[in-house]
């Protein structure tokens, strides 16, 4: 007989209670695993993926030139782990690989962190820097280099806005593949091979799309400014 407070339990009573708690623990564990579509607990996943989490934060920081320091990285790591342990994995539906899903959590946490602390906007300094983080007007300047043989006076705001309006209007008639290829090639400066991987097409097909896009935009500009026919690259 065992006395707990005012209660007296027999040994068999205690054993059956213990058995009940073990079964209950297993049911709870099963429910957590079932909900997350995973065969591991969130704790196990954190232990297993801690290197991946840290490397992904640092890699994104390096590629995007976010200038996060060690304290920022530690804070983001804490947020990611808190999210993973706090039910973040319960949303996982198995539509992508687990490490890709963790990348998503890391990426979103970095974006939230940057917004929350109004971190410096990324400075384009390396070839890895993507242009869509910059002001889109700057991207427009890069883009227009493909089409003209003369120097545009960018201080001429009316002309500049007019060209942008022409591009915008023409862009709105593109199908989604051409919109994506336009963005990646002209604004983000991705290579044709990089774009091919992203849109799941071959590189020659991407090249054909790019030529078609150039032709359409040239035609649209010529329609408004026929006097620039010679200056627009063929």
């Amino acid at each position, binding site marked *: 007989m065992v006395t707990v407070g005012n209660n007296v339990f027999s040994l068999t009573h205690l054993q059956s209670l213990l058995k009940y708690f073990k079964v209950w623990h297993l049911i709870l564990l099963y429910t957590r695993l079932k909900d997350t579509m995973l065969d591991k607990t969130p704790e196990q996943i954190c232990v297993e993926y801690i290197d991946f989490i840290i490397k992904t934060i640092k890699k*994104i920081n390096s590629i995007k030139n976010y200038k996060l320091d060690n304290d920022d990285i530690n804070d983001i790591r804490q947020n990611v*782990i808190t999210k993973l342990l706090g039910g973040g994995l319960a949303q996982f539906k198995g539509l*992508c690989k687990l490490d*890709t899903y963790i990348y998503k959590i890391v990426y979103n946490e970095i974006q939230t962190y940057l917004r929350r602390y109004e971190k410096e906007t990324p400075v384009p300094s390396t070839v890895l820097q993507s242009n869509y983080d910059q002001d889109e007007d700057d*991207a427009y300047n890069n883009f227009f280099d493909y089409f003209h043989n003369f120097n545009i006076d960018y201080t001429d705001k009316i002309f500049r806005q007019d060209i*942008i309006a022409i591009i915008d209007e023409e862009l709105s008639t593109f199908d989604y593949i051409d919109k994506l290829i336009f963005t*990646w090639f002209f604004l983000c400066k991705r290579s044709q091979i990089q774009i091919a991987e992203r849109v799941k097409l071959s590189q020659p097909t991407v090249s054909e799309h790019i030529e078609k896009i150039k032709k359409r935009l040239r035609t649209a500009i010529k329609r408004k400014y026929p006097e620039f026919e010679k200056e627009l690259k063929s």
Partner: protein
Amino acid sequence: MIRAHLQVDCNDEMQEKVLGVADGTISDEKTIQEVLEHLSMCKECFALYDNYFLLMEHPELDEQIEDDILSLDFNIANNTFVPVTSSTHIIPPLVAVLAQPDVPAVEIEYPFKGSIIKIRIIYGTNHNIDISIYCNNDGIKIYLLNGSRFDIATVSNGMAMFSSVEMGVILLLIDFKKVIRIHINN
């Protein structure tokens, strides 16, 4: 401003689908087209998708990025903790102040915030271990992750402790600033 994207709302499932196309889990043509169409409208998902590829396109960064996790591996043999690889953080057994004789124990020293954290691991009952952390800075939070366990202990009177920890891979996060991974094979 060139408006390549419209601003559309997207949910967690769509983001997962976007990444499923990126990493090749989704190969169904219809879903791929649905995702690409979504990318042409959603700036957030476009950035998520493009960045995934940027990460994959630069594997050389994996090697350049310094690993700031202290990893220690031990086997338990002949009633002692045997380090698999030597580390300056492991205190030689002769120096270590062991709790009891004949009980496998190991001590680890690790610099943190200008002082030293001492971690003492003692082989306990039922093939579990007890981990004691000694530190001068009261209030430091130590997080333990292991199997299905997530525990927090706060250093009070120079000490924090985790009892009956399962062997295997144990992760200790010191104030979420430093990570120590201890792998104990029985």
